[in-house]
């Protein structure tokens, strides 16, 4: 599959780029796996599993993303520092998401104490959670699911 000798990382002393060249079979196999997971995620979305649907959808998307990054983007054979940059940016995106959702999702718990959970301008409940009554029953629970 490769015209180059297989010494990938050990022979940089000659200064030339020795890339690891993957086989066509590997690339096509990854592509078929990605199509398979796409079909699975569409299929599972038709089954009603409540909040689990979102978790499964994100899990499958992450498996697909990992396949793309590892094989199509060659992170498997790449400089480890590049992988650190990529994973690092994901970690910080996670921090961004977690802290922001923790704030916006629980804001009404504080506003209840402050009596500020109604939008003065419209009389509507201000964004940030279900009405006080539900909060009082189930403190800390996520937004109420009506569901279809």
């Amino acid at each position: 599959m490769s015209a180059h000798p297989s010494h990938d990382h050990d022979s940089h002393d000659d200064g030339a780029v020795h890339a690891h060249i993957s086989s066509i079979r590997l690339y096509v196999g990854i592509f078929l796996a990605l199509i398979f997971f796409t079909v699975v995620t569409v299929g599972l979305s038709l089954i009603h599993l409540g909040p689990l649907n979102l978790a499964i959808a994100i899990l499958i998307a992450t498996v697909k993303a990992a396949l793309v990054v590892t094989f199509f983007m060659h992170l498997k054979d790449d400089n480890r520092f590049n992988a650190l940059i990529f994973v690092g940016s994901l970690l910080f995106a996670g921090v961004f998401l977690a802290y922001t959702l923790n704030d916006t999702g629980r804001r009404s718990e504080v506003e209840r104490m402050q009596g500020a959970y109604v939008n003065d301008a419209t009389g509507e409940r201000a964004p940030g959670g279900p009405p006080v009554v539900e909060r009082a029953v189930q403190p800390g629970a996520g937004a109420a699911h009506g569901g279809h």
Partner: protein
Amino acid sequence: MSTAHTDAAAASHDSGHSHAAHDDHGSHGPKFLAHHFDTPVQQFDTAKLGMWLFLAQELLFFAGLFVAYGIYRSWYPDDFSWASHQLDRFMGGANTIVLLFSSLTAALAVRSAQLGTRKQTSVLLLVTIVCAFGFLVIKFFEYQHKFHAGLLPGNLFNPDIHHLSASTQGLPIPAHGGSFFGIYFMMTGVHGLHVIIGIGVIFWIWLRNQRGEFTSEYWTPVDLVALYWHLVDLIWIYLFPLLYLID
């Protein structure tokens, strides 16, 4: 797969550097080696590092949109579910497959460039571009339907009940559907902009390949443009279930 190991490699590394003429590009290595790099591998690693930094920045940029999505979905879960049912899963799924296939051809184009099979690289880059156009065409028809049905962002959200999905018939029109469509148009719009830019840069790399700039010793730009294209694919891998497949 035959390998055409051609001339450019021939540039020898053993010839002594003449430091007096530093600006003389030809004197210190192969033609593709910029004079501020010592070796091709140093130039390659530097280019890859720069590209990964750019991709990390892209991820963080999209993270802002994903966080907006998370906030509004957690506030209005039922509105998001209703609005998601207005999207065409078939078109979204078709676009997923088109984009995954274009990622495959982009990866194969890099492989072909690594082997120095120039004609094949050009064909694979063109197929990638065709897929990108296909994606945009499908997206156009989706957008057209949204405009037609009044499924628009914010205050423009004014659905026409005759054009809504059968699965939501009889359900009340949600008050915050406009929030979903604001996020939908922003996320798919910015992603679509990346697809358009991708068409431009892949075409540029195709032109350079046609001019014979790349050999089995120097194919870094093909590698980098493919990395960008895979990132566009990566974003879509998350957009598809998050926007189209809400239960």
